[in-house]
């Protein structure tokens, strides 16, 4: 993951958007256990536009395309997800700026900026049974993995897979947590025993991105 050019930014965003659209029903079902079941469908309203209109987006820099995604989400996504995910992309956009090649350090800074935006907008912190509980440990793992010398050889393939696996486990670990944010919080102790839908979505999205990333660099190495 030494220097990510714009086609790699495209790969990540397209994969993310498609994964969210494909999993809308699954995410909504997770949300209906203690929430109100709109999470997957709300996100889909925005990300399906990202899928269909991606080719028309301004992709002159990483910041430009992240900003466009943030605007689409703020315009189309209702519920809690619109402001949360929209703010995450807008903050990520500010951190990316006009760069077209992203170093490992840039990628981590962009992800950290998104996390700060989510915390600011939602007023949530770690351990409150939200998507942060999967996202933050995944970013920590990715940062540690990218710092290893092997990361330069395999383009971060192994580090990204580790991060995705950590996200899936961390999402599973939200099960015994008491929900303190969002509509799930209204159920109090009855929120215990089911996974957080947002955290689970992060795991699913990172697994898809990791698979697409491995595919891309595997193809490049084998020349297929």
């Amino acid at each position, binding site marked *: 993951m030494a220097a990510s050019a714009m086609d790699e930014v495209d790969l990540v965003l397209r994969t993310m958007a498609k994964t969210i659209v494909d999993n809308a029903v699954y995410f909504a079902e997770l949300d209906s256990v203690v929430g109100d079941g709109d999470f997957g469908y709300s996100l889909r309203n925005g990300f399906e536009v990202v899928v269909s209109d991606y080719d028309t987006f301004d992709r002159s820099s990483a910041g430009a395309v992240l900003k466009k995604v943030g605007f689409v989400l703020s315009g189309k996504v209702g519920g809690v997800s619109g402001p949360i995910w929209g703010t995450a992309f807008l903050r990520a956009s500010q951190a990316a700026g006009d760069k077209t090649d992203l170093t490992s350090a840039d990628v981590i800074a962009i992800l950290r900026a998104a996390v700060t935006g989510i915390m600011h907008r939602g007023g949530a912190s770690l351990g409150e049974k939200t998507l942060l509980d999967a996202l933050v440990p995944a970013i920590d793992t990715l940062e540690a993995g990218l710092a290893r010398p092997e990361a330069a050889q395999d383009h971060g393939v192994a580090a990204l897979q580790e991060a995705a696996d950590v996200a899936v486990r961390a999402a599973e670990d939200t099960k015994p947590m008491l929900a303190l944010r969002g509509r799930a919080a209204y159920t109090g102790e*009855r929120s215990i025993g089911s996974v957080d839908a947002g955290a689970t979505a992060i795991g699913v999205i990172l697994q898809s991105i990791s698979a697409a990333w491995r595919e891309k660099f595997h193809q490049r190495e084998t020349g297929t």
Partner: protein
Amino acid sequence: MKKFVNDPRQFVPEMLEGIQLASDGRLKYEPKYNLIYRADMPKANKVSIIQGSGSGHEPAHTMIVGKGMLDAACPGDVFAGPPVEFVYETTKLLNSPMGVLHLVNNYTGDRLAFEQGREMCEADGIKVETLLVNDDVAVKDSTWTVGRRGVAGNFFVIKAVGAASEKGASLEELVRIGNEVIANVRTLGIALSSCTPPVKGTPLFEIADDEMEVGIGIHGEPGRQRTKLVSATEIVDIMLNAVVPDLPFKSGDEVALMINGLGGTTIGELYLLYGIAHKKLEAQGIKVFRSYVNEYCTSLEMAGASLTLLKVNEEIKGLLNEPAEVSIRVF
């Protein structure tokens, strides 16, 4: 799922189109923002009153747009607050020199959209104030949660500020009146069955034939307690025992009493509940000033009811007694 529906994802737009067409020209519809608004608004001499919320609570809020009530409603999808853009564009379109009042039921999504939307409007020089409605006693208000939910009591806030705004009240005056209502209104809901959002196609939760959910939210969020179904009188006791001590409502108080149907309960059952509640309140020395028995804020086809009490003073009584017009109801 067994509903009158074409493409489930077009459920909300097709419903809104029906509302506009039924209004005989008194309402306008802007499909880009799920926006239903009074054709005669904005006006220079009246504050514009806007509500967002999700769809699926009809008649709240798109069907109670009219003179003396809301001036506009821009709901999100079924059970989802509106995107920020809906709030921003609706406020711009309804902007009045007197200002714009946002009525927000206290849910995280609605709050975030309206906070961000208000920031964007204020950057454009639009004068905006916000009222947060939080009448649901089922939620324990702690420092952790976003606080109590806004449910059927929202109607009284709309009615009071809607009436005052028709008489030319300033934005600041409406905020004072609205907060007076919010401080004195309390609700508890009980569900007997689940509900099915059209896009989801399956019930939001399962509930057995002999069970009820006490403290249900208006989005099918589970309440605080699942118990065996009991008699109507015992259900009214549960409701009053949660609502009355919460304010508390005391002997000598005058109240508006609302029995609100959640969508799938007959009007007959609602009046049955009303009668029991009315007698029990009077026995406690609490005088019913005015009754409200109907569907005001529903959760799709959920069977169930909520009980709302509003403690009234002379000012609020006057505002509740003012005429109001709901553009699509014709008698």
